[in-house]
Structures are given as C-alpha cells and as structure tokens.
C-alpha cells in the first residue's frame, strides 16, 4: 500500500477529527490572513492621512525675510529659480512629493466685485525618482482656476455655475470653488504653475518648494535629526535656498506613522504566534493520540522516514485544505471590510496574495512539523512501550 492510500483511509475513518483539523487550520489562517492584510491596509490609510496633513518641509529663497514671511502667514515676494527642483531630484534629496509654487497677492475681479487674493501657481507633486507615490497634489487644468471659499464668498461666487474670474486682466474659468479648509487656502486662487509664471511675467521662477521629508533611513544611519540631515543635503545642492521645517506637523506625522508601524508589527507577531501555537497544538494532539499506530508500524518494520511520512502526510493533506480555505476567505473578507473602512485608500485596496500565500504556507509547515514531531520522537522506541499510550 502506498502512503496516500493509508492516509486517505485514515482521514476517511476519522473524518470528524479530520474535519475539525481542517476547520481549525482554516479558522486560524482566516484570522491571520484577515488581520495581516487589514494591517497593511490600515498602515496605508494612516500613511495617506498623515500625508494629507500637508507638506512639512518648505524650501524658500535664502533672500527671504523670515519675519516678513511669518507675519504674512507664510507668504513672501522673494523668488528663486525653478531649476532647483530638478537639482533636488538629481541629488536624490531625502524628500518626496515636491510641489513647486509661485504666488502673488493680486486683485481679482468677478462681475463688478473685486478683492485681493493670494494667487498660487502650483504644479502637480513630483515624486523622487525611485520612490513612486500617488500624487499628493494633482495638476490644475490650464486656463482654469480653483477658488478658495473665502474669496468665493467675497466675490459672491456660487459653488454651482461659478463663472469666471479676472486676474491681472485675463479671464479664467472657475473649475471649482473649494470647500473651506480653515487655512490660508480659503483666501487663495489656485492655477497651473506655468500659467501663473506667464501671467506674472516670471518665467522659470518660483516662490517656494513644498515637500514631505523622508529622512528615516538617514536619521537612523547617522543619528542626526531630520532638520540637520536635510540642511546638510540642501547645502550641498545650493546656497540660494534655505529650508523651513514645520516642526510639530513633521513630528506628529513621524510619531503617528511610527506608532502605526510598531502597533502593526506587534499585532502581526501576536497573530503569527497564535497561528503557530494553535495549529501546532492541534496537530500535536492529533499525533499523540496515534502512538499505538506508531507501535504497530514499528512492529511491522516501518522505518522512521515511512512513519513520519504517514503522519506528516495526513497533516499535510488536511492543513493544505484548511489553509487554502482560510487564506482565500480571509482575503476576500478583508477586501470587503477594508473597502468600506478605509476612507482614503479603501477604493484602491487590493488583496496581497503574496502575504496570504505566506500565511497558508507557514500554517501548513507548522502543522506538518507538529504532526510529524511526535512520530519522529518515538520512532526509536520499542513498539510495546508505545502500545496503549495514546495520549
């Protein structure tokens, strides 16, 4: 008889405990798969949310007067060359999501109403090469503008059918009126950067570059603070710009992200341990309950390898069924759950089948190991010492 015939016969004979084994493995792999994937989605969501807090690094011309800049709520007339953006990219600075901005305070008119607005030419965020990310800032359509809620209120613009606004003698169609954010952006009009440069006759010039710091690795490697790392990197690229770090925002972002990662890691470790211990215990119990069979096989001249193959084979067959079921169901359920739960990233949530496969594989390996171990352990003992010793 080959081992598969014996294993199949055994599974059929003990179908209740076999089903229980499949159910336990399925339930545990379901749970681990679900949480492992949920944690991935959760981390992405946290990452997106802290990113959406806004840029925490501002690179401004070195000629900028900080007092004037802060007095005017983060605004300055100072400008610098846009080529700096490319230089930062070429130098692989520890930044991402670079957003070049040119802004001016100018009067704007809609119908007969006029008010002063902060007109901001802004480009789509530029990812650092090798660090591709979903854009933090989308491009603004040329010849169209986005109007802040405070400006819209002063110019009596409606959210629907807002019409057009004249800026520096040129009329722009309103793409949309933005909802109030409680920031300076409520008093701003956003337009395409290139178009703003033409409008203000400042080709190739920008007021500042906003960005997100990505200094974790550098800080860990050098022991320096994030600000020190960035200032050192920027100093190597140009002397015509300086760097401002929005301290509390940057620290909050780092703390939230680190906490999220640490908590997720802890949860994952607990889950992996749960997977290993529960499956191992069950497989072990199953195997210990069959010591008499080991004795019979030994008395018939079966060697260690054949006996371990029989015990491991049974567990392998059952745990494969269980883990496949658990991983597939866990993946599908987490997809359903995360799509609704994760507001920012849920629509893009995709099942990480690689992680699911790892969970399943480890469940199978742990089961086989735990199921084979007792047989491996006792196989050198005299058969009579095992008869009637089923645990």
């Amino acid at each position: 008889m080959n081992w598969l015939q014996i294993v199949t016969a055994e599974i059929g004979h003990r179908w209740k405990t076999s089903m229980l084994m499949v159910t336990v493995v399925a339930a545990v792999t379901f749970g681990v798969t679900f949480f492992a994937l949920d944690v991935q989605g959760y981390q992405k969501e946290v990452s997106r949310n802290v990113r959406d807090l806004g840029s925490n690094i501002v690179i401004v011309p070195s000629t900028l007067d900080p007092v004037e800049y802060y007095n005017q709520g983060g605004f300055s007339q100072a400008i610098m060359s846009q080529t700096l953006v490319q230089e930062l990219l070429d130098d692989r600075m520890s930044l991402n999501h670079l957003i070049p901005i040119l802004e001016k305070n100018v009067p704007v008119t809609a119908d007969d109403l006029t008010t002063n607005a902060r007109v901001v030419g802004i480009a789509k965020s530029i990812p650092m090469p090798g660090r591709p990310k979903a854009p933090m800032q989308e491009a603004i359509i040329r010849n169209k503008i986005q109007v802040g809620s405070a400006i819209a209120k002063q110019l009596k613009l409606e959210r629907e059918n807002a019409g057009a606004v004249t800026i520096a003698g040129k009329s722009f169609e309103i793409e949309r009126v933005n909802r109030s954010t409680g920031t300076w952006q409520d008093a701003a009009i956003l337009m395409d950067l290139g178009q703003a440069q033409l409008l203000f006759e400042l080709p190739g010039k920008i007021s500042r570059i906003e960005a997100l710091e990505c200094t974790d690795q550098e800080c860990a490697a050098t022991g320096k603070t994030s600000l020190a790392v960035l200032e050192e990197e920027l100093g190597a690229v140009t002397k015509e710009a300086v760097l401002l770090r929005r301290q509390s925002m940057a620290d909050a972002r780092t703390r939230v992200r680190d906490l999220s990662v640490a908590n997720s890691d802890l949860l994952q470790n607990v889950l992996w341990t749960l997977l290993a211990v529960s499956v191992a215990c069950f497989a072990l119990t199953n195997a210990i309950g069959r010591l008499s069979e080991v004795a019979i096989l030994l008395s018939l001249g079966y060697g260690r390898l054949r006996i371990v193959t029989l015990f491991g084979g049974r567990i392998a067959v059952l745990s494969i069924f269980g883990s496949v079921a658990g991983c597939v169901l866990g993946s599908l359920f987490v997809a359903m759950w995360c799509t609704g739960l994760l507001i920012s990233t849920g629509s893009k949530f995709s099942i990480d089948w690689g992680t699911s496969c790892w969970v399943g594989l480890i469940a199978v390996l742990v089961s086989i190991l735990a199921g084979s171990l007792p047989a491996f352990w006792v196989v050198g003992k005299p058969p009579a010492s095992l008869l009637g010793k089923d645990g």
Partner: protein
Amino acid sequence: MVPILETVRLGHHFLTRYACLEVLDSIDLRIYPGQWVTVKGPSGSGKSTLLLDSGGMQLPTSGQVFIDGIDVYAASMQVRNNLRGTKIGYLFQTLELIPYLTVLQNVQMVTNCDHEMAKTLLQRLGLADRMAHKPNCLSHGQRQRVALARAMVKIPSLLVADEPTGNLDLETSQLVYEILKQYVEEGGALLLATHDPLADGFSDRILEIKNSRLLQWGEATQSVPKHDLVDGEGM
C-alpha cells in the same frame, strides 16, 4: 545450526511505586528453524513479556536477545527495523489491527508483502468473504486470524504468537494450528504463548514460566537444566 532466536540471561522486572516486580529471571532459550516452542503459565506469569522481549518489541531489563545471530537491542534502529520487517512476525495478544484499513489492507501493509500471498492466507484462515471489511465489523476471533495473517504474510524466520487461538472455537483453533504447523514444517520457528491444551500436540517443546524462571512443563518444581532448554532436548 545457528538458532533463529537466542536469549542470554534475559531478565525483566517492572518497577512500581512500592515494589520491584521481577517477571523474568535469567532466561536462556534457543529456538532453531523448524521448531515449535510453546510457553505456558498462568496469567501474569510473564509469557507476554518473554514474547515481547524475544520478538524485539520490548527492551528487556537485562540480558541479550539474538535473532539470526544479531543482538537485537544492541543493534541500530535501522537494523532492528529491518529485523522486524523481514525476519520477525509478531502476533500481539491485543492484536493491534489498524482500525481504518480493511482486513486485506491490514495484511498488505506489511513491508515486502506479497499481495497474492496475503489473499491466499486470508482465504486459508476462513476470511475470504471478509477481506473488504474493517476490523470493527469482525468478531474477536476473526480479528485474531487477521492479526495472524499479518504476522505470517512475509513468511518470517521467527513467528512470535501470543495467544493466537484465545477466542477461537475448537474447529478454527485446529485450522490455525494446522497452518502454524505447516509454517514450522517449511522451516519457520515458532514461539507461542497459550493456555490452549490443543497446542500441546503440535509443539516440539513445551515450557512453563513459574516464579520468573523458564521450566520444563510438568516439572514445575524443578528448573530445567540449561542445556535442555538451549538444545531443545527437554521434551
């Protein structure tokens, strides 16, 4: 001639919480090919222990067991497994059939099993119509015959049978003994433990365990001289 089984000063005791129970004491025994040796004795006298120790199934407390010249308990695990797989056929008193295999599968799962031989043996033992049944569908007597078939199917050099007819009717017992007789006549060596007087007529030697010692049956007060036991002249 080399004995197929030889025990040298074989001893076995069981330690309990309160006492040391000595079951076998310095047993010297030789069994040659073509010999039927029956061991008798009251329940608990140590028959099964002697058979388990002699058949390579249980580590004795002292002494040595040689099967076909190989010191069973000094040999490596692999050698011991090979001995069990090729030279020893063992019928446990508790039968120990695999419950999820059919009668035929229980016999065929023996290593190096001749599948036709398995069927023939089961037919001879009156189990032709039971081959596809599981052990739990059989009477104890039928299970006993399945266990015997499993022990004999590889035609071992040494067959150790512990109460093979304990639950059989007279007619079936006779049949079993006839089959065992044929096995011995064909050169097999049989070590049998039984209470069944029917076995006496088939045995070449009958021994008895009393007070931990192996005695010539019927001479219970006197220990059998060693040369009688080892040379098979005690009958």
